């Protein structure tokens, strides 16, 4: 089966200059765990995920300690969000775009998700413009 046969034709995306706080609201509304970030021509130039945002909100020492157990409360994250909530998503997005095309096979998409540990993949056309998204559940529900 090809990706075009089961992709979710949801073009929900963010622009590079979308404020981080707005991105959180969009992620909540869209029900997706990450959203593609597009440039002026609609080409996917990055992906912002819940994980990227949490990472941006955590103090830098957490990365060194590889643990969040030292955090006394979530207040620190809230404070950080107040500080960086208006920053553009471009600053925090993952720039390596792992995407599939409509002509790719379901096996290729599944393999890519497993190897990269991703919950979903943007689907782009030959020009790199967003045409949809494939989630793990889209593959699982077709088994």
């Amino acid at each position, binding site marked *: 089966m090809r990706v075009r046969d089961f992709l979710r*034709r*949801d073009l929900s995306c963010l*622009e590079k200059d979308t404020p981080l706080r707005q991105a959180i609201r969009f992620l909540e509304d869209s029900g997706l765990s990450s959203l593609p970030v597009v440039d002026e021509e609609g080409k996917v130039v990055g992906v912002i995920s819940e994980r990227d945002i949490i990472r941006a909100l955590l103090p830098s020492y957490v990365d060194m300690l590889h643990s969040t157990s030292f955090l006394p409360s979530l207040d620190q994250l809230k404070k950080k969000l107040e500080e960086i909530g208006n920053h553009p998503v471009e600053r925090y997005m993952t720039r390596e775009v792992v995407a599939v095309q409509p002509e790719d096979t379901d096996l290729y998409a599944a393999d890519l998700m497993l190897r990269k540990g991703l919950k979903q993949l943007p689907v782009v056309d030959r020009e790199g413009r967003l045409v949809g998204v494939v989630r793990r559940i889209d593959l699982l529900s077709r088994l």
Partner: protein
Amino acid sequence: MILTVTPNPALDKFYWLDHLPENLAPSEEGITIRAEKSLTSAGGKGINVSVFLASHGIETVAMGFLGGHTGQIILRDLLAKGVSANFVWIEGENRTNVALIVRGHEYHPIHIHEAGPPIPQEAQAMFLRKYERMLSRASFVVLAGVLPPGLSPDFYWDLAKRAREKGVRVIVHAGGEPLLRTFPARPFLVKPDVRETLQLGELPLRTEKEVIAAGRKAIESGAELCLISHQLTGDILVSADGVWKLEAKVPLSTFRNLVGADDALVGGILVGLVQGMDLLESVRYGMGAAVASAEVEEKFCLDKERILAEMQRVEVRRAE
């Protein structure tokens, strides 16, 4: 790709009733109406056009504003029907539009329409950026339906102007002031919504003569084509080259659900044009789609053979 804009999407809820209570006066017990059958689907004029196009395998992207649980249901329904969705999410809840269809009186449904959530400035700006991006992929754009609170009556004019600047043909499928204001942007086709008032601006649309006069006025004001429904089974097409009367020869008693029939008409015209039919054949196909859709309980008839059969019953003649 055909882009549709529905600024005020809705969840359409249909109830079929055996009969309405004869007396609706307030009583101590209240009034309970039991529906024999119900049906729910994503709605709003542009969304309906997209659903019809997707059913014909034509690539289409629906745009507009979604909010709340109703917005989630609308999105889910659209994606399930093969429509690409590119909406801006807003605070609030999309509207639910109710149609009560009484057996034996299917051509006179009772509608309850909500106003829809207000659209904040921030969401409008976001929408315009998305719209500009999508225009570069589109061959047609359909601007459709009533505007929700918060949008200027110039909203469609602005969108039509931007589309025209990019060489994208515009169809305006709306009513009232927002439609009239698009004329200077020279839309390819205007399809006035006359469900609530038989008027185009100040011009009445009761008789055939009045419809033709109003259509000519629309052409003089900038529209390339104007298609106005006249009575339930007729349409009048006006262009700078002439006037055509189209009549579907079907008895009203065959109708089961009229909601969405005019959207099937616009969708059908687009299917015809995309598939290379000439203008009049495309309008005939659209009318075939509208009649076939009115004859089924679901919003649209997706059986192409049946649409083609209804198309054959549509007569066209040039008016004086």
